[in-house]
């Protein structure tokens, strides 16, 4: 019979009891390993530092484009802002039309949008995530354990 010993019921056969002894060296017992429970194991993906940096990366095109447009928008708006500040100090009226503000606003909005888009969309990140998903689909650790035993 090869049932594992049941802790709650009868004493298993060939039980060797060691009681009330004092040892000055380790108690040595052999053959104490059993099969671990299957749920202990989860498939893991080995994430190297290179892949980790790829996951953190942003799209270089969108980031560059966004940076350029945003810089241009800020540069476009700067003279108007200066005019308004100076005019406030002297109390004079400015003659900046609404179009100037609209253009600046749109440029800044587009630039920021591209930057944010760059952060969110990254081809490298998508590739790494695809690889991770393929790994988990083909290497379920539990499946291997069940097949072996």
């Amino acid at each position: 019979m090869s049932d594992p010993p049941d802790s709650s019921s009868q004493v298993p056969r060939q039980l060797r009891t060691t009681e009330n002894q004092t040892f000055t060296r380790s108690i040595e017992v052999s053959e104490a390993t059993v099969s671990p429970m299957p749920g202990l194991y989860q498939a893991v993906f080995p994430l190297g530092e290179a892949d980790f940096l790829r996951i953190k990366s942003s799209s270089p095109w969108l980031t560059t484009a966004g940076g350029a447009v945003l810089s241009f928008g800020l540069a476009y708006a700067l003279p108007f802002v200066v005019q308004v500040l100076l005019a406030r100090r002297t109390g004079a009226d400015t003659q900046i039309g609404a179009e100037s503000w609209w253009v600046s606003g749109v440029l800044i909005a587009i630039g920021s949008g591209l930057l944010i888009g760059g952060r969110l969309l990254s081809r490298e990140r998508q590739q790494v995530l695809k690889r991770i998903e393929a790994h988990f689909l083909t290497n379920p650790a539990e499946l291997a354990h069940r097949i072996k035993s």
Partner: protein
Amino acid sequence: MPYVHVLPDRYVPLHTLDLCTNVFVNVSKPIAIKDFPILLIAGGLVPVVWLAAPRFPGSSDWHFVVAEGRSANPAIQVAIDASKRETVVTAGPTRLICAVMMADDRAQVTEIDLRPVGLNVIGSKSGLMIGTNRFANNRVQGASIGIALG
């Protein structure tokens, strides 16, 4: 041995550990397999537990699934009760280890069942069973390993 197994940095062995009525005095690795520590208990407000499991089924490479009282494996939970100075490590419905601080340098393991992590070690307040060997009221003193398996 290909390399020397080093104990975790922040582990300070207890002076006395009562493992299901077997008392280990000045033992740095209460349970070890081929010199690698499986169970380590350090003192504190509650017992601080390290528990190892094989890296994959059938492997002889063990790594800590509970380290410094924190579970590194989603299948294993560590619960502490500061008022009772108790630490309970469970895997689903099974209580792997139930340890209580009796004094600042003494802890007692009242229940142990390491079968979910691959060791045939079961213990209660009436004694410790390893495979077909039963140990009760023994004392190990001055050895670096309390129970050497494998």
